[in-house]
């Protein structure tokens, strides 16, 4: 069990660095299907894992190249903090089954967003480090 979880973390991390999709987008279905967690438990555990600043190393590379809008970043951080609480309050009373279905719809939307990402961004330094920007 412990070994499976450690390997799962490693696999999720590889996908995050490699593909530029969010850790949570992969973690939640992995926890639901591989560890047979309830949808709520998987989402809460995913939020717990995302608390440490996993993108710190990647941020350094962007910062050095002047590709950071600090003002907008701070606004986004505050907005997401507030919105996150609202989202949590919405999610908790929803029946697990409906939450699972909604998550499925969100995955489909995220798949479209990932698909339409322009070619250009993959040519430069962003391909590796930058893509961990996606939470």
């Amino acid at each position, binding site marked *: 069990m412990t070994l499976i979880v450690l390997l799962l973390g490693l696999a999720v991390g590889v996908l995050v660095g490699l593909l530029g999709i969010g850790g949570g987008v992969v973690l939640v279905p992995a926890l639901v299907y591989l560890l047979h967690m309830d949808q709520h438990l998987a989402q809460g555990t995913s939020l717990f894992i995302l608390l440490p600043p996993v993108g710190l190393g990647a941020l350094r590379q962007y910062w050095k190249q002047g590709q950071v809008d600090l003002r907008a970043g701070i606004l986004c951080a505050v907005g*997401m903090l507030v919105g996150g609480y609202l989202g949590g309050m919405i999610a908790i009373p929803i029946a697990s089954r409906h939450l699972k279905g909604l998550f499925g719809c969100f995955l489909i939307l995220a798949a479209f967003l990932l698909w339409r990402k322009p070619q250009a961004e993959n040519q430069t330094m962003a391909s590796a480090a930058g893509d961990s920007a996606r939470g």
Partner: protein
Amino acid sequence: MVDGSARDAGIFGAACLCGIASGLFGIGGGTLLVPFLALLFAFGQHRAQGTSLIALIPPTGALAFYAYAKAGYVSWQVGLLLIPGVFAGGILGGWLAKRLHPRRMQQVFAGLMFALGMWQAISAWAH
């Protein structure tokens, strides 16, 4: 480009929406924030990703996490075991991405995510 304060308000509003998705689905929120910044506020792709990264440095999911933790929806043991793997894997993935074809990998993964999303939605609602 709209003037400063209207733009600030727009960015804040978009970030609130990303936060709601983050709390609702237990994810980081950057998946939505990067395209929002790029499409709605004319950020270049690098600048959108860099700005998303700095927005994600503070624990923006903390309040959402608190809501889940209070309701007992956190598996602490599994979470603690996953953190080192995700860190190490991220470094490995970044290294690999320079050697593989990332665009192709993204498309393969978008397809997988679409299938997984359909599966989740259907298994939840088809009865």
